[in-house]
């Protein structure tokens, strides 16, 4: 099953919904609404972990050796947005790229979990696009929040799927299309640190809770995106997340309309 959080246009209430095969959503009161009739929100609420350099090919692309210990950074809710939303490319930068990632959703409190037991703590999977603005990289707590935690620059969703609906999370194709053109392709089999390892690692020094999300890193194939671009990231068997890039001025104009 697919689970999502949505809002109806003009309403404040957040609905937890099930998603049908045609991507319409089923509200608790029985109403069925089309994919384009709702506002898609991030599918869970919790601490967001993200992995840097977790695909060997991507690490090589960035001229780094793959790390010997996971390179983990955190994101706050400020940066998250949902399916079919807008992402802002800052003015006066030279390079902002997408990153298609498989996201693990934690379903059970996890502390000191072994890799053998780790999958018992997974509720399901989602997809995120972990945009980065490389102009803002500095060599302190790299990748720093100004690069990775900007408003609108972490679309996540559209939903999460139950763990048992994904036969093998270590063999899923990831793909990114920009304006319909395939730009990035990889497979979760190439992760440096796999999902059981990441859960064992994180839970060895901190408690994971239901709703926590682990964005597991991206393969090679990065490229700049600009206002007007439609960016789609897809993880095989999990979901396809659509996003549109706008300029700061376009975003401000859109915000003014909706207020």
């Amino acid at each position, binding site marked *: 099953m697919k689970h999502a959080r949505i809002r109806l246009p003009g309403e404040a209430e957040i609905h937890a919904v099930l998603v049908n095969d045609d991507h319409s959503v089923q509200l608790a009161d029985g109403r069925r609404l089309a994919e384009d009739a709702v506002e898609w929100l991030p599918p869970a609420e919790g601490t967001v972990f993200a992995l840097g350099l977790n695909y060997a090919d991507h690490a090589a692309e960035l001229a780094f050796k793959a790390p010997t210990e996971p390179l983990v950074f*955190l994101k706050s809710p*400020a940066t998250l947005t949902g399916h079919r939303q807008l992402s802002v490319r800052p003015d006066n930068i030279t390079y902002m790229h997408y990153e298609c990632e498989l996201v693990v959703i934690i379903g059970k409190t996890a502390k000191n979990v072994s890799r053998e037991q780790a999958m018992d703590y997974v509720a399901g999977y989602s997809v995120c696009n972990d945009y980065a603005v490389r102009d803002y990289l500095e060599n302190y707590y790299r990748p720093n929040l100004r690069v990775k935690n900007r408003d609108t620059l972490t679309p996540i969703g559209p939903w999460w799927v139950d763990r048992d609906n994904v036969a093998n999370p270590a063999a899923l194709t990831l793909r990114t299309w920009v304006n319909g053109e395939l730009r990035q392709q990889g497979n979760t089999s190439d992760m440096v640190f796999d999902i059981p390892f990441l859960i064992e690692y994180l839970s060895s020094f901190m408690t994971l809770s239901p709703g926590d999300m682990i964005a597991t890193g991206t393969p090679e194939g990065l490229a700049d995106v600009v206002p007007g671009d439609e960016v789609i990231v897809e993880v095989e068997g999990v979901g396809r997340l659509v996003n549109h890039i706008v300029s700061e001025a376009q975003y401000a104009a859109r915000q003014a309309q909706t207020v």
Partner: protein
Amino acid sequence: MKQGRIVLDQQARRVTPLAAGKLLLDNGNPLADQPQWLAPVTGTVYGVALNHRSLLDKLEADFQQPPYQKAPATPVLFIKPRNTHAGHGCTIALPTQAGKVFAGGAMGVVIGKVASKLTEQQALEVVAGYTVVNEISLEESSFYRPAVKAKCRDGFCPMGPWLVDAAALDPLNVEIRSYLNGELAETNHSRDWLRSVPQLIAALSQFMTLQPGDLIIPATPLRQLEIRPGDTVAVEIAGIGRLENHLIAEESTQ
């Protein structure tokens, strides 16, 4: 005006102080017993690293070397996630096999309004108030990669007990005192901060929207106040209150 959050009958409740250490519940009832305190906020906690002169002075030469190459141009930020949040009086478990652990006596700036792209002049208008924070960390030998393992352990960000209204304090003139087993062990004064509270709020709000209940830790000094299982650590700010926590060994909790 001061307020805090406690647990009563498994519910989070608001309290305000009465005379002689007594508390008033949010429904007007008095509370005779000492409660279990919660962190006074539930939003995102952003910390600012390398904002205290004691650290900058020590690292100035390192900043010119690999892997840094040059001094930071913008505030160096980190997140203390929800598993680190704890209240006044909570017992905090320290790892014993992960090297030294240090207290980080600090102030917490609590956001009260949605804040985006503010100027320094506008910044203090979005502050709801201030609280006391102990930003606990393992020793940091490098600032190159995010310090998740050092800073994000369970209970490594006790806060409270009180959130005081913004008017109660001048964030440009604050002294934070840290006590180890009752002895004054460290002070952290706002005059030693590279960027002030309004400058930090303005800088953060340029690229991420701050929400009511979010909290910013403007600065922690160079890590010198080592804490060990068995210790009691307290952080105090005049006009806000005293945050006290007892420390035990992690192994004893398993």
